[in-house]
C-alpha cells in the first residue's frame, strides 16, 4: 500500500504510487495505435512465407487496382533507402546488407517483401493477398549447430560457413588452472530462443510535412533519439528535419531497443504519399519479425579443487544470430562473456564465441541480454560441480564468493565490480526458507519417493549500461531541469521509460533535492523536439544513469537558486532547504517561486550569472554498476505427469539504494515471471525449414496469473559508489536470478533418479520422459 505525501518529508526510499497511473487506469493514455490523424492511411506488409528463397517475379497490379489502395511499394521502390543499421562492431564482423524490403532474395520467414497503403486497415490487409510473388524456395537452416556443419545451406551465399564472427577473450592462466585442477566438469547447456512478447506490438505512425520538408515518426521504441539519428541516415533526411515521438510504450524488454525496417519504411511511405500513415504490427508478425532473445548453445568446462575451490572456467559459446544483425545482435553474446565470473573470485577464464547465421529472425537484446545466459551457465556449472564433489550448493558458493573487503574487485574478464556483500542475500534467503530444516524435510520426502527439490542461484549483473567506451552509441544519459517562473519544475530526461516508473522516481529525487511538492514536478520524455538528446531505457540504466544526470542538473540549480536568493535577500549567507531560501542572519526568506520568477524577470543578476533557471547535464558514468542477489526455489515434481509445482520462490535482491521500493518489487516480480517463462514454458520453436512453429500466443506459453507462484521478495541494500544516488539498477535482476534457481531445483528434485542436467524449458513432457527413462 502506498504512503501519502507531505511536502517536507523525504521521498527517496518511500513506497509511492505512480504519477503515470491515472492515465493508464482510465484508458486515456495514448499508445501509437491510438493516434488518429486527418487523412491518415494504413499500411500492411507482405512477408515471405519461406525462410530462404529467390524472388523470381513480383506483380502488384491487382493490389494497386483494388478500391481503396493508394500505393504498393516493393524492394525495388525502396532501394534508395539505406540499410537497417547494425550498431555493434567486432573485429572481422561480417555484416550482410539489410534492405528494408527484400529485393531478390528472402532470408527468413516473415522477411518483409512489399507494403500496401490503403485508406482503411481492412482494405490494406485485403490487398496484401492480391500481390503475386513467384518464389524459388531454397534449402534453409534454423539450428545454429547444424548451420556450422559441413555442407549446411548457406544463409548468405557469400559466406558458406555461416559464421558472422568469432570472438576470443581470455584472462589469467586457464591452461595452468585446468592442469592443476583435481576435478574438471563439462556440460553442454542451452539457452533457448525466446520471444519477448511485449503486450503492445510494434507500431509506427509517420507524418510528412511537405512545406517544411520535415518528417515526424511516432514509434513504440525504447530509444527515440538513436532512432532519429539512424532513420534520418537511412532516409537521407537532415537529422533536424526528423522528429521522433515515443508515446506511451506497452512494454519493450529489449525488443524495442532497435531500429527496424518498418520505422524507416513508414517514413518512406509518408514522404511518397504525402499523407500520414499508420502501421501496427500483428501479434503473428511480432512473433515472426520482432527480434528474439537468447539462442545459445554453450559448452562449459569448470576446473576446481576437491574442496570446492573453483580455479577456472572455459566456454565455447555458439550464438544463433538469425539472418541479419539488428542494432546490437553481435554484441549481446560478448556481454555473456563479461558476466562469466558471476560472483566468484576465480581469475582464469577463456571464452570463444562463434556467431552463426541462421534462416530465422535476428536475435538481439531481451531482458538481461547475454547476462541471463551466462548466469544460467555458471550457476548450473557450480551446482553440477557441487553434486560431483558431494558438497552442499550453498557451501560451495560461500567458499568461492568475492569477499566483501575486496572491492573494487577486478575480474578476469576485465570488469571492476563496484561494491558488494555477496554472502548476505544468500544468508537471508537460506534463513527465509529455514534451509537446514528444509534439507531434512527433503531427505524424509525422498524416503517416501517424493521428488522434492531445492535450487539456489546467486547471480551478479552488469547494469547501468554503460560507460560510453563500452557501448555502441554512447553510454551517458542526459537531464534538463527547468524551474518555471512560477516555481513548478519540469524535467526532460533522455531516458525513455516505458513502464519502469521514472515519471515517479525522478519526481521523488527532484522533490527531495529542491524541497518542492512532488505534484509540482513534471517528468517529460520521449520526444526529440522537446528533450535535448538521450540514449534511452535499457540495460537497467534509466535511474542509475538518467537519475544521476538529473541529480547533477539539480545541484547546478541549487547553486543558482542560492545566488539569486542571496541577491534578493541582500545577504552573503543563505541556506536553501524545503523550497525556501533563508538569510542565515536575519531569518528573512524567499520562496522558490519568488526566486525563479526573479531569475526570469532578470531586473538584477548575480555576478557572472545568466537569467533563467534551467540546467542541462549529460552524465558519463565512470563504470557499470553490479547488482547481485540470491534466489531459492523449492519445487516438487509429480512422478506420474512430470508436472513441476513451485512450492516457494524466495528472491533476495541487492540493487543498491532503492528510490521507490514499491517499483523495485514490481521490477523483481516481472523479471522473475520472464525468467520462469524461460525456465519452464517458453521456447521459440523453428522446424527444419525455418518455419516458426510456436508462432502465436496459443503455442508460445508466456506465464498466466495461475502459472505464477507467490514471490517472497526481500532485499539487502549495498549502495553503489559509481553514482551519488548509490543506485545500481533492477530491471533485469529477476530474470537473471531466476532460471538457474528453477533448473537447479528441479535437477535437485530428480537427483535420486540420476539426473544431472536438463535444458530449458522444463516442460512436463520432458520431465516425464526423464522419469520414465530412469525407471525403465
Amino acid at each position, binding site marked *: *500500500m*502506498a504512503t501519502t505525501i507531505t511536502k517536507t518529508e523525504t521521498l527517496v526510499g518511500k513506497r509511492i*504510487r*505512480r504519477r*503515470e*497511473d*491515472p*492515465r*493508464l*487506469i*482510465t*484508458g*486515456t*493514455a*495514448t*499508445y501509437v*495505435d*491510438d493516434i*488518429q490523424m486527418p487523412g491518415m492511411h494504413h499500411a500492411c506488409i507482405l512477408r515471405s512465407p519461406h525462410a530462404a528463397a529467390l524472388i523470381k517475379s513480383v506483380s502488384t497490379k491487382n493490389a494497386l487496382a483494388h478500391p481503396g489502395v493508394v500505393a504498393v511499394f516493393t524492394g525495388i521502390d525502396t532501394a534508395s533507402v539505406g540499410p537497417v543499421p547494425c550498431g555493434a562492431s567486432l573485429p572481422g564482423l561480417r555484416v550482410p546488407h539489410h534492405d528494408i524490403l527484400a529485393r531478390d532474395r528472402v532470408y527468413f520467414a516473415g522477411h518483409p517483401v512489399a507494403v500496401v497503403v490503403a485508406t482503411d*486497415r*481492412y482494405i490494406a490487409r485485403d490487398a496484401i493477398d492480391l500481390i503475386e510473388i513467384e518464389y524459388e524456395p531454397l534449402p534453409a537452416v534454423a539450428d545454429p549447430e547444424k548451420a556450422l556443419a559441413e555442407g549446411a545451406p548457406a544463409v548468405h551465399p557469400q559466406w558458406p560457413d555461416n559464421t558472422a564472427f568469432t570472438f576470443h577473450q581470455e584472462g589469467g592462466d586457464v591452461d595452468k588452472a585446468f592442469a592443476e585442477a583435481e576435478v574438471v566438469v563439462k556440460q553442454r547447456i542451452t539457452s533457448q530462443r525466446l520471444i519477448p*512478447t*511485449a*503486450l*503492445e*506490438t510494434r507500431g509506427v505512425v509517420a507524418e510528412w510535412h511537405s512545406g517544411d520538408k520535415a518528417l515526424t515518426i511516432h514509434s513504440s521504441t525504447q530509444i527515440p533519439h538513436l532512432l532519429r539519428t539512424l532513420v534520418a541516415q537511412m532516409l537521407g533526411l537532415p537529422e533536424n528535419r526528423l522528429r521522433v515521438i515515443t508515446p*506511451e*510504450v*506497452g*512494454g519493450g*524488454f529489449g525488443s524495442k531497443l532497435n531500429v527496424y525496417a518498418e520505422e524507416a519504411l513508414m517514413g518512406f511511405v509518408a514522404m511518397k504519399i504525402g499523407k500520414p500513415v499508420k502501421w*501496427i504490427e*500483428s*501479434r503473428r508478425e511480432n512473433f515472426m519479425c520482432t527480434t528474439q532473445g537468447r539462442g545459445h548453445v554453450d559448452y562449459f568446462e569448470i576446473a576446481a579443487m576437491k574442496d570446492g575451490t573453483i580455479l577456472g572456467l572455459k566456454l565455447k559459446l555458439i550464438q544463433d544470430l538469425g539472418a541479419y544483425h539488428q542494432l546490437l545482435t553481435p554484441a549481446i553474446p560478448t556481454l555473456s562473456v563479461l558476466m562469466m565470473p558471476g560472483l566468484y573470485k576465480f581469475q582464469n577464464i577463456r571464452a570463444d564465441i562463434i556467431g552463426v547465421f541462421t534462416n530465422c529472425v535476428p536475435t538481439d537484446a531481451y531482458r538481461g541480454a547475454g547476462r541471463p545466459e551466462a548466469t544460467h551457465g555458471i550457476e548450473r556449472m557450480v551446482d553440477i560441480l557441487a553434486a560431483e564433489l558431494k558438497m552442499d550448493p550453498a557451501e560451495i558458493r560461500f567458499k568461492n564468493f568475492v569477499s566483501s573487503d575486496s572491492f573494487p574487485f577486478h575480474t578476469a574478464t576485465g570488469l571492476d565490480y563496484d561494491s558488494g556483500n555477496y554472502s548476505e542475500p544468500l544468508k537471508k534467503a537460506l534463513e527465509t526458507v529455514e534451509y537446514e530444516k528444509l534439507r531434512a524435510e527433503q531427505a524424509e520426502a525422498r524416503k517416501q519417493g517424493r521428488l522434492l527439490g531445492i535450487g539456489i542461484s546467486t547471480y551478479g549483473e552488469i547494469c547501468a549500461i554503460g560507460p560510453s567506451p563500452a557501448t555502441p552509441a554512447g553510454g551517458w544519459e542526459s537531464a534538463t531541469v527547468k524551474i518555471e517562473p512560477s516555481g513548478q519544475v519540469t524535467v526532460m530526461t533522455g531516458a525513455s521509460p*516505458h*513502464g*519502469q*516508473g521514472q515519471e515517479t522516481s525522478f519526481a521523488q529525487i527532484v522533490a527531495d533535492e529542491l524541497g518542492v511538492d512532488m505534484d509540482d514536478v513534471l517528468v517529460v520524455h520521449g520526444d526529440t523536439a522537446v528533450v535535448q538528446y538521450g540514449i534511452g531505457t535499457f540495460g537497467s540504466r534509466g535511474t542509475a544513469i538518467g537519475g544521476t544526470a538529473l541529480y547533477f542538473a539539480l545541484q547546478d540549480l541549487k547553486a543558482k537558486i542560492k545566488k539569486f536568493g542571496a541577491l534578493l535577500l541582500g545577504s552573503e549567507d543563505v541556506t536553501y532547504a524545503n523550497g525556501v531560501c533563508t538569510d542565515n542572519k536575519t531569518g528573512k526568506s524567499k520562496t522558490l517561486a519568488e526566486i525563479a520568477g526573479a531569475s526570469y524577470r532578470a531586473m538584477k543578476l548575480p555576478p557572472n550569472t545568466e537569467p533563467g533557471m534551467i540546467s542541462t547535464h549529460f552524465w558519463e558514468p565512470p563504470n557499470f554498476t553490479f547488482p547481485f542477489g540470491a534466489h531459492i526455489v523449492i519445487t516438487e515434481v509429480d512422478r506420474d505427469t512430470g508436472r513441476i509445482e513451485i512450492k516457494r520462490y524466495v528472491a533476495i535482491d541487492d540493487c543498491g539504494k532503492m528510490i521507490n521500493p*514499491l*517499483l523495485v*518489487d*514490481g521490477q523483481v*516480480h*516481472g*523479471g*522473475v*515471471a*520472464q525468467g520462469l517463462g524461460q525456465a519452464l514454458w517458453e521456447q521459440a520453436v523453428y522446424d527444419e525449414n525455418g518455419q516458426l512453429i510456436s508462432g*502465436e*500466443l*496459443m503455442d508460445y506459453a*508466456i*506465464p*498466466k*496469473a*495461475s502459472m*505464477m507462484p*507467490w*514471490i517472497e521478495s526481500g532485499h539487502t541494500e549495498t549502495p553503489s559508489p559509481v553514482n551519488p544516488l548509490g543506485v545500481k539498477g533492477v530491471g533485469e535482476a*529477476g530474470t537473471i536470478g531466476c532460471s538457474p534457481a528453477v533448473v537447479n531445483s528441479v535437477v535437485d528434485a530428480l537427483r535420486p533418479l540420476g539426473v544431472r542436467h536438463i535444458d530449458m524449458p522444463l516442460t512436463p513432457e520432458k520431465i516425464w520422459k526423464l522419469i520414465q527413462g530412469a525407471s525403465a
Partner: protein
Amino acid sequence: MKRTINLTINGKQYTHEVEPRLLLIHYLRDIVGLTGPHIGCETSLCGACTVAVDGKAVKSCTMFAVQAEGRNVVTIEGLAANGTLDPIQEAFWNEHALQCGFCTPGMIMASKQLLERNSSPTEEEIRHGLEGNLCRCTGYQHIVNAVKAAAAKVGA
C-alpha cells in the same frame, strides 16, 4: 453492404453505419474514439480488449460490431465517467498493479467482472479468474494484491 447499428456505450446512445466484418474493438477504437481497450493479439488470447457487454466481460476482438446491436457496452472509459475512480481502478493504482499499462484496461474490466461474480475471492480464485488476461510486466503479484484490496474495500 453496410449495416446500421444502435447501441449504448458507457451510458450514451450511438448509431453508426458499419461493415458487417468490422470487429467490435475496431469500432470502439477507430469509430467511437474509445482507445482505452487495446489490441494485443486479435485472437482472443491476451484480453487487452476486454469490455463489458450487457454486464459480461467480452474480448471485443472476437465480436463483430453488428453483434453489439441493441447491447449495452461498458469500456474502461466508462468506469470513472463521473470523475471518481472505481474501487478496482483505485486498487490497481495503490498496489502498483501495472507497469506499461497496455494490459491494464482489459485487466481492470476482467477484475471487475471477477469481483461481481465473487466478492471475496481467494488468491487461487483470482489467479484462475484472470487467466484470460495476459500481463508481461508485473508477474501478476501486485494485480492479485489489487483485486484483494478492492474486494476488501467494496466488502467493507
